[in-house]
């Protein structure tokens, strides 16, 4: 019984830690804008935490630079176990425009395993929220159900497939 309670609480209030691994901070201000009154992800119980030790989800922005690689791995190791990583922005997904720069290694998945990719340069705050809800959908069928019927109603035309 305690197990699914803990699982439930983890899905209902995923605490987020933001990590910029060398990007142009366009996506950082969009992640912050998602926390602001207009989009307000706190409705999903998402809080921005300063330290990775309190976070369930690591929101990564920016392409991995050579200098930042082992720091990112270090921060990833500091997170408690059921941890997820969302790569926000084209740079985080694949290195984006800096694909051939000498100090850039590529997307976040070059350093740490990534669970969800949110393309966009920068993705709109509601695209980031869509990514978070989609990630929660992988954990909790009700969120997946929520996305399904919203798409059927044509609210979200998230094709992408």
């Amino acid at each position, binding site marked *: 019984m305690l197990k699914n309670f803990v699982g439930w609480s983890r899905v209902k209030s995923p605490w987020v830690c*933001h*990590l*910029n*691994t*060398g*990007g*142009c*901070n*366009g*996506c*950082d*201000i*969009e992640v*912050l*804008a998602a926390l*602001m*009154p*207009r989009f307000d992800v706190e409705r999903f119980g998402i809080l921005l935490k*300063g*330290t*990775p030790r309190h976070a369930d989800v690591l929101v990564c922005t*920016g*392409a991995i*630079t050579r*200098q*930042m690689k082992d*720091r990112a791995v*270090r*921060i990833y190791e500091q997170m408690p176990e059921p941890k997820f990583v969302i790569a926000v922005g084209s*740079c985080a997904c694949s290195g*984006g*425009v*800096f694909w*051939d*720069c*000498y*100090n*850039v290694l590529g997307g976040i998945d070059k350093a740490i395993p990534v669970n969800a990719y949110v393309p966009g*340069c*920068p993705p*709109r705050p509601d695209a980031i929220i869509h990514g978070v809800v989609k990630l929660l959908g992988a954990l909790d069928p009700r969120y997946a159900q929520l996305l399904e019927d919203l798409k059927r109603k044509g609210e979200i035309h998230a094709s992408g497939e």
Partner: protein
Amino acid sequence: MSVSIPIGPQHPALKEPVNLTVTLDGEKIVDIDMRLGYNHRGIEKGSESRNYIQNIYLTERICGICNVAHTTTFCQGVEELLGLEVPKRGLFIRTLLCELNRIHSHLLWLGVAGHEIGFDTLFMYSWRDREIVMDLIEIVSGNRVNIAINAIGGVRRDVSDDMRAQILQGISQLEARSQYYLDVASTEVTFLRRTEGVGKLPKEKAIELCAVGPFARASGVEYDVRKDDPFAAYPYLDFKVRTSDRCDVLGTAIVRALEIVESCKMCRQVIEELPAGEIKAKAPRKVPPGEVVSKTEAPRGELIHYIRSNGTDRPERLKVRAPTLANIPSVLYSLRGGYIADIPIVFAAIDPCMACMDRVILLDTDHGKTKRVMTWEELRQHGMEWYADRKG
């Protein structure tokens, strides 16, 4: 006994990776050492393997907040190399977006400054009002943050009439809000107590260390590229360069709030005097050999692009010096002697944009005492040994 504390690349107050190693004597900061390079992506080398059209989008992504300043500088430089005459309407639209970007960047700074001294009400309210200018930017350019509107020879999108009405309506709302924030920034006790007399930078020190932008204007240095070296449509606009002689963080807050009001007026002038006509001149792909120094005023200060072309469609050399890089020696000067609690707000005073600045180190006037800074591995090693013999 001085203790050296590393403030790591990942820190709640700093949205971007920078590593500050602070040498403390009790609460007072004795010395500060900044190690950057976390954001160094090697853009200048990357720009040599791209043609001019692709370089517009590469320079735009140097910094997410002041990106229209980078593309304006780059396109202006290439147009000068080509000897291309940009139609007046294109210049006016380019200036409109520069000013809208300045409003959005200063409102963003006001919120982050409030957040860093714990004044979250200001953070929430100023960012909610920032959404007004974000919607205006999105209507005109199609993307909230990365305004890809500059092209070589002019502007890619036109401003239609209903956009002009929406912009005027949004600007009047913004003007009222910025007047309100100016009043809050200058009278609210919670804001004053944390920013008055903090991070002192006297005028001659600012001139000697070549500070630029609102941070220098807060110490009375009257230098604004829009006035001294007008570009785009700034010769046709009348505006005042706002300075204050408070020489501290509160000065930067007031200068930035005044600049928002000034930018709103400028946007109104641009919209009313928008000339008809073409928005873009045809530009060849190959650029004749030559070199150019192109300067503009980014929200954080003077931004310079040095472009050298060799006749092919790829630049020979692109040198970018972002405003934050010029402000670092002065912010490190003003940090010394302060308290550790003031580091985030004094550091935020120059509105640091690490993404712009991806190359910097401090002016380390080390008065002869050897302080040893431990790297991560040594620190971890030291920690393990220390615990081992404590348990042992």
